[in-house]
């Protein structure tokens, strides 16, 4: 347990101290959201209507941004070999790394959401709903992304291949995340229905992600 806690603290420290961690993710999120009005025009009503979708797409892309370094960096400096040989199970170690990634990338996005909601003309209820769906849904994105990160690390390829592999798998999360946010704003479906499915997707990916990622690393790095 202490080994996992140490791994979690190490990843968090790396994310905060080494440039390109949490602040860059939030900055990217902000830029994506800023670009949208330039593309579709400054119509506030339209922005309010598609605001949750924009925020979700921004979170999806910002989450993807830091993924290719999640395991690849450890592979480069050799610490992945230590994690592989450690007594703590690889699945739990990877889950700890994913948790650190979410705390340093996903959580700041949720915290930044109220500000961005303001820019997109979302009322407080809508902003709250989007923030709530993001806090429930972004762990799923991280844990699904963990599989892609492990696959591409095993193959020593990152970047676009990672996006191609991971994005189709995140479609259900996107659908139910945006659906829950919209349900809270305009209805007619009760908020609970899509939100429960979103939570179920998150829980499932927390279970499946570390196992699949560990399998990919064990099979791929020989």
């Amino acid at each position, binding site marked *: 347990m202490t080994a996992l806690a140490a791994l979690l603290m190490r990843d968090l420290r790396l994310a905060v101290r080494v440039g390109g961690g949490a602040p860059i993710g939030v900055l990217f999120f902000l830029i994506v959201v800023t670009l949208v009005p330039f593309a579709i025009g400054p119509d506030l009503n339209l922005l309010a209507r598609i605001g949750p979708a924009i925020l979700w797409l921004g979170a999806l892309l910002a989450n993807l941004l830091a993924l290719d370094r999640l395991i690849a960096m450890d592979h480069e400096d050799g610490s992945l070999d230590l994690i592989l040989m450690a007594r703590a199970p690889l699945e739990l170690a990877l889950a700890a790394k994913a948790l650190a990634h979410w705390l340093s990338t996903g959580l700041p996005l949720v915290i930044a959401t109220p500000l961005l909601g303001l820019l997109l003309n979302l009322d407080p209820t809508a902003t709250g709903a989007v923030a709530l769906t993001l806090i429930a849904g972004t762990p799923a994105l991280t844990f699904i992304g963990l599989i892609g990160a492990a696959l591409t690390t095993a193959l020593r390829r990152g970047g676009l291949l990672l996006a191609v592999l991971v994005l189709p798998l995140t*479609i*259900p999360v996107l659908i139910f995340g945006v659906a829950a946010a919209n349900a809270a704003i305009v209805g007619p479906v009760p908020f609970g229905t899509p939100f429960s499915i979103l939570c179920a997707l998150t829980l499932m990916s927390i279970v499946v992600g570390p196992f699949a990622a560990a399998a990919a690393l064990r099979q*791929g790095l020989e």
Partner: protein
Amino acid sequence: MALIDLANPSRFLALADRVLPWLAAATLFAFALGLGQAYVAPDDYQQGATVKIMFIHVPSAWLGMFAWGIMSLAAVGTLVWRHPLADVAAKAAAPVGAAFTLMCLVTGSLWGRPMWGTYWVWDARLTSVLVLFLMYLGVIALWRTIDDPARAARVVAVLTLVGAINVPIIKFSVEWWNTLHQSASVLRLDGSTIHPAILGPLVVMIVAFTLLFLSLHLAAMRNEITRRRLRTMLMMRADAAAGH
């Protein structure tokens, strides 16, 4: 002959050489029968002759999913038993499956143009087949990024199984998404009310397409084994030329 014996490529090649002509002949026969029946099948009273696109469209859709099933079985074979033939089967099935999925999309689009008035609607079924096609392309891309086939096979096997878990979830969520966003305005064929005069040829065509897939898959597996042998020989020759 036990499954483990087929791990020897020479034995598998001998078996494939014996089976393939029969399989090809059965495919030709089934296609002759199916196409003949499809030709004389009556036109739909509403859709006219375009209903005959179904005889290609539906079997392609079936094979798009069938190929992923074959890949998942092969992935289990790769991860659990490290069966060398499973690697080859998984690799050979991916492009064939992708091709049938693309054929399903293209024929569906051509059918949609006269029936719905547009080449593409964001209908739940169309969308989930599109996602399936994208996932095939991801798997093929993953295969191509690595030289060592045995290592690539194990990594791709993980992705294939994750995909097998996800495909039903994606299908379900896309259906949910579609019913939420638009009412059922899209014309769709009701599966259960197909007239026997059309259902008969359709079943024959599905059998014919499945036989075609099996033939293509077996031939692709044979080619893949030959390709690997060739690669080993070239590497040995390069090794010898380098003077080791």
